[in-house]
């Protein structure tokens, strides 16, 4: 029976070879084990022995031809035999990687000895998959079941070391947080998310239950009004104010403040500046009323006051007619009465503009929600020393950021910008308010 002789894989990494010289010609007899041809591989030229005895019936690969491993190079059989397309066992399975199976083995250190046996690649794949499927845990070491903490020592919150630290920094109680990590572990993300929520600082709940807090009527009102406000189309513009002049002004005023009288603050200076600006840019001192805009003759400025679980905005009337000292006194009075719960309805009505100041909380800037139907609300940040360019030089200046939110139905960008520009000018050069 004719044997097809294929190019053998003679070492790891061998993919092909070139027959340099045939040592037998067609028609020659050859014994199994006798050298049949000289082969040049990447590494060496060597003699390759015949795997079968018989007569060389046909030579299929020429000298100098590069042949892939596993491809037939000759046929050996009985003398006079017909060469059929019959192939023997080995040629079908000849170490050909012509099926494109990628060999996983790295070739950087070509070892001569040994072979992963490319035909066994499937088994290697199976072994790898089984490994990936098996538990990530080490198999050999006796696996201690995750020992649950004994009841005795009480519950312990599962939190990553990072989450613990962040919670501590943010002043958050771990037990008030919900964990989204493995096995309900609190991870850093959970802490960040909780810290980003507005509103009051989390208090440790008394129990494990979800705490249900009924809205107070004030809260309900705020909720309703905020929803209304959100439905208003509004825009914001911001400006940064150099507060040196305002600070000098305040100092002057403090010097003149008598014992026992209210000490004016920056808020008061700002209130005055806003009031004066509102009378210059009357469109800002207005209410939107559906098909009408009501422009007011006087500036009644609401001051946002934080109260436990809420926000109240009592109004100082006729601000443009009051001196800064008077504004200070009015403010203090309102705040005291607000905190004592002694505001009247009159205190809350007729506001034409609102100022909300979060500077004392260290806030840089923010966007306040409109207080409808008012045309605008001013959000005030903290006064901070910041680097500023003056005449091409870098200097430190105390600055404050103002963000004005406006009802776009009644006010446009130009108006708003001019107004805010005036407020800024007044703060930076108070003399202009005269």
């Amino acid at each position: 029976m004719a044997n097809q002789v294929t190019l053998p894989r003679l070492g790891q990494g061998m993919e092909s070879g070139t027959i340099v010289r045939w040592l037998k010609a067609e028609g020659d007899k050859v014994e199994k084990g006798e050298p049949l041809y000289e082969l040049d591989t990447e590494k060496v030229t060597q003699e390759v022995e015949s795997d079968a005895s018989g007569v060389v019936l046909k030579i299929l690969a020429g000298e100098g031809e590069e042949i892939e491993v596993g491809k037939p190079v000759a046929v050996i059989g009985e003398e006079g035999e017909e060469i059929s397309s019959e192939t023997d066992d080995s040629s079908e399975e000849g170490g050909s990687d012509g099926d494109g199976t990628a060999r996983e083995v790295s070739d950087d250190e070509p070892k001569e000895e040994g072979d992963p046996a490319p035909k066994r690649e499937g088994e290697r794949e199976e072994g790898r998959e089984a490994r990936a499927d098996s538990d990530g845990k080490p198999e050999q070491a006796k696996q201690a079941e995750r020992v649950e903490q004994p009841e005795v020592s009480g519950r312990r919150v599962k939190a990553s070391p990072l989450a613990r630290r962040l919670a501590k920094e943010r002043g958050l109680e771990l037990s008030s947080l919900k964990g989204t990590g493995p096995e309900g572990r609190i991870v850093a993300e959970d802490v960040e998310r909780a810290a980003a929520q507005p509103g009051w600082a989390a208090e440790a709940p008394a129990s494990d239950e979800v705490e249900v807090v009924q809205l107070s009527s004030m809260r309900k009102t705020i909720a309703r009004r905020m929803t209304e406000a959100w439905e208003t189309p509004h825009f914001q513009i911001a400006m940064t104010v150099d507060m040196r002049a305002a600070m000098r002004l305040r100092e002057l005023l403090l010097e003149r403040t008598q014992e026992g009288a209210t000490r004016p603050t920056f808020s008061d200076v700002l209130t005055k500046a806003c009031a004066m600006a509102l009378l210059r840019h009357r469109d800002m001192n207005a209410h939107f009323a559906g098909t009408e805009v009501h422009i007011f003759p006087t500036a009644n400025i609401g001051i946002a006051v934080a109260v436990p679980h809420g926000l109240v905005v009592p109004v100082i009337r006729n601000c443009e007619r009051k001196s800064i000292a008077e504004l200070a006194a009015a403010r203090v009075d309102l705040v005291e009465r607000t905190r004592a719960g002694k505001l009247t309805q009159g205190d809350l009505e007729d506001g034409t503009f609102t100022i909300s100041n979060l500077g004392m909380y260290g806030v840089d800037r923010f966007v306040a929600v409109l207080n409808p139907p008012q045309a605008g609300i001013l959000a005030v940040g903290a006064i901070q020393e910041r680097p500023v360019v003056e005449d091409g030089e870098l200097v430190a200046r105390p600055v404050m950021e103002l963000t004005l939110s406006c009802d776009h139905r009644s006010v446009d960008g130009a108006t708003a910008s001019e107004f805010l520009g005036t407020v800024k000018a007044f703060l930076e050069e108070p003399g202009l308010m005269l």
Partner: protein
Amino acid sequence: MLLIRRFEEKVEERFRAGELPGFLHVAIGQEAIAVGVCKALEDGDVIASTHRAHGHTLAKGTHPNELMAELYGKVEGCSHGYGGSMHLYDVERGNLGANAVVGGGLPAITGAALAFKMRGEPRVAVAFFGDGATNIGTFHESLNLAQLWRVPAVFVCENNHYAESTPAAQQLPIEDLEQRAVAFGMTSIKVHGQDVEAVYRATKKALEHAREGKGPVFLLCETFRLTGHYVGDPQVYRPKEEVREVRAKQDPLPKLREKLGISDEDWDELDREVTELVEGSVEFAKAGTDPKPEDALKNVYA
């Protein structure tokens, strides 16, 4: 011997076909030692082999099916797929294992022989190793200790004049390896390793010596490797004429055949029988069971 020869040839063939993973070292040319020594052993005697272990394993009685199955990494293999060509064990048949570390199995043979002596058993422990191994520490320590304690061991050195690719002149400071034994005061016997009958007789003498409590014996067998160190080895380090000459003149099979005066017909008959056995072993192996991946976790501890 013919069985070993055909088996090894088949192994080379299957390796080239890409079916056999890992390293393979065939004993073509050294069959006479494996057969000569193993046939001389009695029941209860044990052997430990080297990386070139197929011949010893077959000669000690492992069925070619189990051996081939092991080379294919099947559960039916003599080491159940855990060992492969260089870690062939057949404890029931007295085969304490092939060893991939040169000289690695020698100390344990001294230990086995010690156990036989301590228990008063008439058994002998036999180690196979090559000339290259006579350089390594375990060789010296094992023979030293074996001789000191006069344990019933036989150390069979298959001197094929190459340690992997390094010829004798480059690795042995002495020419006559019997001198190794002299260093330990150990009895030695030298024999022509290609003559199976001579090996058999020499082994018998060595075993007798050991069994009689006279101490271990160093059995030096001069032999030749007819192929490369590993399957696929192009033997670039070996002059071609040497390989040709050795194949022509030092093949133990034709030598035996001539000695026994076996006719062509008888020889062919024998060859057919043996070839059938070998081919059957490949079929057996290929039809064998692959271990499950998780089987890897078993047998680490008793």
